[in-house]
């Protein structure tokens, strides 16, 4: 547990160091106050019109500098993020936006991956479940635990500080039970151990 504590403390320390997000303020003296983080976030949503695949937040060319300045001027005039994006979209076309708007025909771009992912997950879970059902039916005759392994399993579970020895499932059936000495790799459950986690070398078929 001391490890866990150390880990969480170090993560926590990092977190505290960045907990406070400071000031919005003006960095460019030529423009009155605006929200700097908002400006940088808008920079990441507009493409540089002349450079390949870079946003104005990244590109180092004059036009992207001008666009950055324009974004800041508009922010300081009180324009909202959406108004600024609309302004650039009207002027340069939809492809100035780094991601298409979530409306109209462009919704397809957003909906397809989400639906596809959900569909795949549902299908995957159904497949797993049906495989598992079939497996549960067929596995009945396999579940008898290898008698020889019981003492080892108990010993290991004792070492691991797990109370109830022998609970875990049956050993895998591809493993010969010859490598269950106490010095074998220690997994987190008995069945892991019982199988040994390593493959014994393939028998030569020749």
């Amino acid at each position: 547990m001391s490890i866990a504590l150390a880990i969480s403390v170090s993560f926590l320390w990092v977190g505290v160091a960045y907990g406070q997000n400071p000031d919005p303020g003006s960095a460019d003296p030529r423009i009155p106050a605006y929200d700097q983080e908002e400006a940088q976030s808008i920079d990441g949503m507009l493409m540089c019109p002349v450079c390949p695949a870079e946003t104005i937040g990244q590109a180092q060319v004059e036009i992207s500098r001008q666009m950055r300045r324009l974004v800041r001027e508009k922010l300081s005039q009180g324009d909202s993020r959406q108004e600024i994006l609309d302004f650039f979209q009207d002027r340069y076309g939809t492809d100035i936006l780094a991601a298409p708007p979530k409306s109209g025909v462009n919704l397809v771009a957003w909906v397809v991956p989400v639906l596809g992912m959900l569909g795949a997950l549902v299908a995957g879970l159904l497949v797993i479940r049906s495989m598992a059902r079939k497996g549960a039916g067929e596995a009945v005759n396999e579940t008898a635990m290898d008698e020889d392994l019981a003492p080892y399993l108990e010993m290991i579970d004792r070492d691991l500080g797990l109370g109830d020895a022998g609970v875990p499932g049956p050993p895998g059936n591809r493993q010969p039970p010859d490598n269950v000495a106490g010095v074998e790799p220690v997994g987190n459950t008995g069945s892991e151990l019982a199988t040994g986690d390593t493959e014994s070398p393939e028998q030569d078929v020749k």
Partner: protein
Amino acid sequence: MADLGAISLWIALALSSYAAIGSFLGKARGSVELVVSSRRAAYLAVLVLFVCTLSLVILFINRDFEVAYVARHSDLAMADRFTWVAFYAGNEGSLLYIAFALAAMSALAIWRAPSNTLDTLPYTTGVLMVVLVFFLAVTGFMANPFDKLPFVPPDGDGINPLLTHFGMFIHPPMLMAGLICASMPFAFAMGSLLGGKTGDEWVDAGRLWGIIAWALLAAGLLLGSWWAYTILGWGGFWFWDPVENAALMPWLGLTAFIHSIMVQKRRGMFRMWNIVLVNVAFGLALYGMFMNRGGPVPSVHSFGASNLGWVFLAFLAVGVLIPFALFFWRFPLLKSAQTLDSMLSREAAFLVNNLLLLGIAFVTLWGSVYPLISRLVAGEEITIARPFYDQVNGPLFLALLLLMGVGPLLPWRRATAASLKRALLAPGSVALGLSAALLVAGIHQPYALIGFGLGAFVTTGIFIEWWRGTRSRHRSTGDAYPIAFLRLLAANRPRYGGYIVHLSVVMVALGVVGTSFFNEQRDVVLGPGESVQINDYELRYVGTVERQKSNRTEFVSTVEVYRDGKLRYILQPQRAFYPSFNMAATRAAIRSTPVEDLFVVPSENLPDGSVGFRVLVNPLIWWMWVAGPVMILGTVVALWPQPVRTTAPASSRVARTLARAGGSTTGAL
């Protein structure tokens, strides 16, 4: 020298064609001689391609500008060490490099093939040689690096300044080698299918080469990020550029594959699925090379527009369709030896992991392709860039991180509710406790909280298991703790190597979460003597020195960094202008610590001596770059051969040698 190179290129093409045809024909006709001579041709092709590669290197070193490729990618001012980079600065050289890497890896794979694949090895050889023939033919006919100019220019065009960076010495060759290495597991799988094997024979070779390809790609991606971070001058490391995506997708496919292949290795399951995965990974790797070399999408990587696109596209189509046709032909052979016992098992976790990885790959592919669809179908010009991927892939990556914590804690076959609870209790409570503590400490971004929580979850799970294993070993053998730990790792390398790799992924996640949610940025124009405040740093701009170099003008700015009113260090970011490319390249000054990076880059030099700076504080990004070596360490541990522990038949080695010498007699006849 150019002639030697060109001739050896054609010889290599002839040899690989012979090896491809001979392997298939020899196997089909049962001709051992033909199979053996094809294999020798494949070995010989490596030698010939080595000569070919060497000639191009010598042409570069001599600055033989009569050769068009040399004239285009080097000049007299270029330092000799950049020959290495200039070699693959354009399509011609990189194709030659890819062919050479493929030939060398194929020879190695054929030579060291595990004995249980010897029977189908001619098919594997044939498949590899077909891929090699493709690359050599494209190089020879369409992008020959040895083509000559009708005149000899006095000087070359010079090397692209963005490439003159240490990262460029390793990033492109790693990535290209990784992409082409995806052919190896693919070829073993195809060999097994063609030979009508039931499916488990190719697993060891497939896993080995799959992991090698995976590690090469991972290292290439990390190095590329590092290059972008230090030289592109905007302070980020990944921006979902189409070519980055093209390299990421095969990596995702391979990640899925190297997990899923373990299930087949252990349990004889997922045979069809692994064939599908290895096909997908190979297809994505081809797509990656297609995007990289003559791709249709604009990108910072498009160093040379070319007409190679359609050839690659055609090969991509063939490389995807034929394997799937084969797969359906051999479908009945690929029945699982085992069934899934429970939804709460490592096997099931691996399946979900595969779905997520393929999902991310699909989203990425969709994002690359949809603008094209939109233009053709809806007539709407749109861009899909970083905000899209961040929003769609972000949650998927978090889910993957969760699974990375849960999967290794689940046993094979079946977990009981009790054992699951026991395994998840400690890591889960650490993760929740940490997130709660961070919330109290003032972090409110949900993604960041979840990200840190999951990072702690994975890390705790791994450390607890290491701790328990070490303690148990210490008790049973009396080894001192450090020795017990090392022996624990050594006793099960694939598993614990994998854990080390998982830790490196957590490190990458730390860097990503840190920079995505907690970075600070200032874009300022400073005159000499002026200063800017960022977090608790104060940066004072002192002045800029201009240096004339033969091919560029360098502007070196000096910036003093104060913290708590005291001068801590001096940074010297640079910006160089290359007149011949009409291009500026920057070199950021970075002060890196595990907590945060202070990053200063000049973005413009104004005539009055003032400089536009971008100043960033990037928390935790240090961990990303450390993750690279850790990941490689983990991979090496995982791949290090296990000592032979059982009484493996002494005859196996003899049988191997015999089988190799005599070709695959049993299969052939």
